[in-house]
């Protein structure tokens, strides 16, 4: 197989493009399909939900999954399917928003540390190492303790928890970019630091940061759902996968569907993003490409 590729390359045959190799990658394609389905479900939630998310009906409690209620009903007669699709919205948005916050704050710190170097870098790098001494969920929990429970606080907590990784990535990318000629050129024509940082440096280091953020969404969804599961995030009325799963635990004996379906939702969301990451890694990493 390798020999064929080598011969193709040496006689100038066209190598398949990255996109086409991605599309032929099992992990990438399957992950993408799952993710697109989940996003479509979240976007179309109002259309595909069969009832209002909080429409309780004492006559229809604990109905098994069937034609009328594809995922059954819960302890107060709410339709689990409708809550599931709206819950997907909340969980995906929490993951995405947290990563955006983490990326903005972490990159800012990393860019400043990498660009100015010396004592600014020492202090900021030390701060990152200190933050990293709190394992992910613990840092998020600490922030929750400070801010108090609530869904928007979950987003902030998970975002803050991801700052160190963005900061590290941004810092090392800036340190490489800083040395390039065009930065010197910009300085020679009299650009201010802020202009160099935001117009010249930042666009060049954005790509790895965006990849990091995208692949981090899975972990962010997990952390967000964990906080809600622990009762610190979404309140019981808000449909959110973590809290739905948590509130169904009490009825595991006779109504597994209340908590199992939201769990499957979280699992699929994280799985899809991990598979996309794995696929990207297999295709883009030069070690695997040979």
């Amino acid at each position: 197989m390798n020999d064929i590729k080598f011969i193709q390359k040496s006689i100038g045959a066209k190598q398949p493009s990255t996109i086409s190799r991605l599309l032929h990658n099992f992990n990438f394609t399957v992950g993408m399909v799952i993710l697109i389905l989940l996003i479509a479900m979240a976007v179309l939630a109002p259309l595909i939900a069969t009832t209002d998310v909080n429409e309780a009906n004492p006559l229809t409690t604990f109905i098994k999954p069937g034609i009328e209620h594809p995922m059954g009903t819960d302890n107060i007669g709410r339709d689990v399917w409708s809550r599931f699709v709206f819950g997907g919205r909340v969980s995906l948005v929490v993951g995405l928003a947290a990563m955006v916050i983490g990326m903005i704050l972490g990159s800012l710190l990393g860019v400043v540390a990498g660009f100015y170097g010396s004592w600014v870098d020492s202090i900021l790098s030390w701060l990152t190492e200190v933050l990293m001494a709190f394992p992910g969920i613990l840092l998020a929990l600490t922030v929750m303790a400070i801010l108090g429970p609530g869904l928007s606080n979950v987003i902030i907590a998970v975002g803050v928890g991801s700052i160190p990784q963005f900061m590290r990535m941004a810092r090392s990318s800036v340190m490489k970019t800083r040395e390039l000629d065009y930065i010197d050129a910009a300085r020679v024509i009299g650009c201010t630091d802020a202009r160099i940082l935001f117009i010249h440096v930042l666009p060049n280091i954005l790509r790895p940061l965006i990849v990091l953020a995208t692949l981090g969404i899975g972990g962010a969804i997990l952390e967000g759902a964990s906080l809600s599961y622990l009762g610190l995030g979404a309140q019981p009325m808000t449909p959110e996968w973590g809290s739905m799963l948590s509130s169904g635990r009490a009825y595991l004996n006779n109504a597994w569907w209340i908590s199992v379906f939201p769990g499957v939702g979280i699992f699929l969301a994280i799985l899809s993003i991990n598979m996309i990451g794995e696929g990207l890694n297999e295709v883009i990493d030069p070690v695997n490409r040979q």
Partner: protein
Amino acid sequence: MWNYLGRRMLTSLSILIGVSVLTFLMLHFVPGDPVRALIGRQSVTPERLEEIREEMGLNKSLPEQYIDYMKKVVSGDLGRSLKNNRPVLESIMEQFPSTLKLTFFSLIISTTLGIFLGATAAATYNSWFDRVLSFFCIAGISVPPFFLGLLLILFFAVRNKLLPAVASTNDWRGMILPAVTLGFGEACWLARMVRSSILDEMNKNYQNLARAKGLSEWSILWNHVMLNARIPIITAVSIQFVYLMAGSVVVESIFARQGIGRLAVTAIQNRDFPLVQGTVTIIAVVYVLSNTITDILYAVVDPRVRLS
């Protein structure tokens, strides 16, 4: 070696100081008056508020308060819980053994399973078995522990009554489900690590020599490749120890087990700040210490590290 040790210790010390500053400042990050955060929702007169401020030393400047805080922490006084007025250190010490037991049990599961799966996958590289295993591992990493725990409870405790979901601390069977829940994702993660570190070491010259000497592939894998692949594996295992400990926060809540993780969660739910500070400090300190020990272990195992 001593030079390396000294530098490593100094870094750890500076991080520990940072950890203590952050946990100390936690109370001051809370929006509003720290005294309010400490006394919760009780209604008190403004005079009483000032008295508490005086008692707690909250009227001093921040650096002074930090020094007071550190003096107490170093002498083992982590304050008292706001909820039941028990010394925080006492509660932590009471809960810690249970978490440690769970963490070690999970570590054994995740390490043996992870190394075994990873080595097998590497040995059968690119076969259908390797592919199935790779997919299984991605799936394993993606399962939220609280969902895995729920499924395990559903199948083993609710449906089949094979294993208890909640058991007294002395019954080892009660440990199986929580330990598997906690260790499974880490085992899958470790398996991937082990597989790629072995593959990195594969097809090097020393293996051809071993092959020429007539050793079996299996013996080359275990006696030669694994020996060289152990550095990333040691790191992975030690990182796991701390991740498992942090993971106990969620897992102890699922199985209603005693432990420091559950203590931290209840403290956060009650906004019991001294207890939050105490539990967070302890977990972070264990984290920093185990990272330090890992780095020292490297230097012992691999002379390249201590000479660089």
